[in-house]
Structures are given as structure tokens and as C-alpha cells.
């Protein structure tokens, strides 16, 4: 399930991970490193420039048991959101 850009922008963010400039597997390594600091039910925002992240972060979230919320492209880079479920 993904939600609209406006809803994503309105989310309260527990942690922002800046993976801009890194290529595969940089963004998921960054997500893995940061998720520990996010409380359960908290939202993590990942910033990325590698377009593969649009597929990789949802796959990572599914495997890790978190809920991928959606993404949008803004000012040349990606904003991706997921909710930590456990």
C-alpha cells in the first residue's frame, strides 16, 4: 500500500537517512544502519539519488517486516518512506 505525496509530506518523521550520492547497495546499507534508531511505529525517511532505490527499498522493507509507505521525486532526488513495524 502506498499513499499520496501530500500524505507522505505530512508524516511525522522519526529519522531521516541521507543516502544521496550512493549507489547500490549504499541506500539499503544506510537504511539497515539507521533503522535501529527508529522507534517501533516510527517513520523513517530515506533520501536517495540512485533510481534503483525505488524498487530496492520496498523489497528491503518487505523482507525486514516493515511497511513501505511510498515515495516521490522532488528537486532531483527521491524521498522514500517506511514505517518500522517491529
Amino acid at each position, binding site marked *: 500500500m502506498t499513499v499520496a505525496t501530500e500524505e507522505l509530506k505530512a508524516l511525522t518523521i522519526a529519522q531521516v537517512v541521507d543516502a544521496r*550520492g*550512493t*549507489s*547500490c*547497495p*549504499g541506500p*539499503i*546499507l544506510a*537504511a*539497515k544502519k539507521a533503522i535501529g534508531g527508529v522507534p517501533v511505529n516510527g517513520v523513517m525517511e530515506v533520501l536517495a539519488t540512485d533510481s534503483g532505490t525505488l524498487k530496492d527499498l520496498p523489497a*528491503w522493507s518487505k*523482507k*525486514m*517486516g516493515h511497511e513501505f509507505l511510498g515515495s516521490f521525486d522532488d528537486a532531483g532526488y527521491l524521498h522514500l518512506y517506511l514505517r518500522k513495524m517491529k
Partner: protein
Amino acid sequence: MDTTRKTIILFSGDFDKVMAAFIIANGAAAMDDDVTMFFTFWGLNALRRPEKVATSRKSPLQKAFAAMMPRGPGRLALSHMNFAGAGPKLMQRMMRQQNVMSLEELIATAREQGIKMVACTMSMDIMGLRAEELIDGLEFAGVASYLGDADEANVNLFI
């Protein structure tokens, strides 16, 4: 969700194939999988220290092998378009431009992520490589050890 296990046999010592193996391994570890990498034959060269290391006695053939093979990730050849060593340098430059992690960084990250790296002792004997010539943090074992891990894995790659 249960954590699963992946195993990768790295047989090749080609720079590009070693890169692929470490990217897959690090990706799997980032997804909370237990990963075993088993290094055999030419793949062992990816684990060599870049400097020359004094070792216990070797046969003349073992010495020759060790001298002719690349020492570490910085000296590996490309599987295609190697151009007598210029190819890997060009690829490394392109990787830097694209912010792709270097092979050295990928290996360091693999260790940080707790990826189990196993050097095949039989290949080490054949090729005249001693443990002290390889980087720290390795385990030393044989085919049964690999197969034991592979039995529990849902993905087994031979690269």
C-alpha cells in the same frame, strides 16, 4: 519473518565478478540474512594482503604461483576488456564517478556486517597461499563446512 541464509562460492578472481559477489553478499546481510562466502581457487586472491608477506616454507611451484597471482583487490583483472591492467583502473575511475563503493570498501563492509568469510584450505595448499598472506577475520575450512551452510541456505551462488 525468519532470517534466512545465503551462501556464495567465489571461485573467480576477476575484479568484476568479485565486485558482484560482494555487492550481493552485502545486500543480503543488509536484509538481515546470514551470509557465508566461501573463497576457493582464484577467488582467494581477493583476500590477499596487498603487501608481500614472509611465510613458512613453500615449494618452488607454490612460490611461483603465489608470485604470479594478484595480491589483493587492487590488483585483480577484469573478466572482459582488461587491456593489460588498464581496464580495472578505468572501471575504478567510473565507479568513483558514480559513487559506487570500492571493492576494498565492500570487503570492509562485509566484515562489519558479520558476513562469514571462509577460505578453502585445499586451494590454499595448491596455490601456495598461507593464512598470514590473507586478510584478518577469515575462517579456514573445506567443502563439508561449505555444504553444511549451503544445506541451510535458500540461495547458493557459484561465481
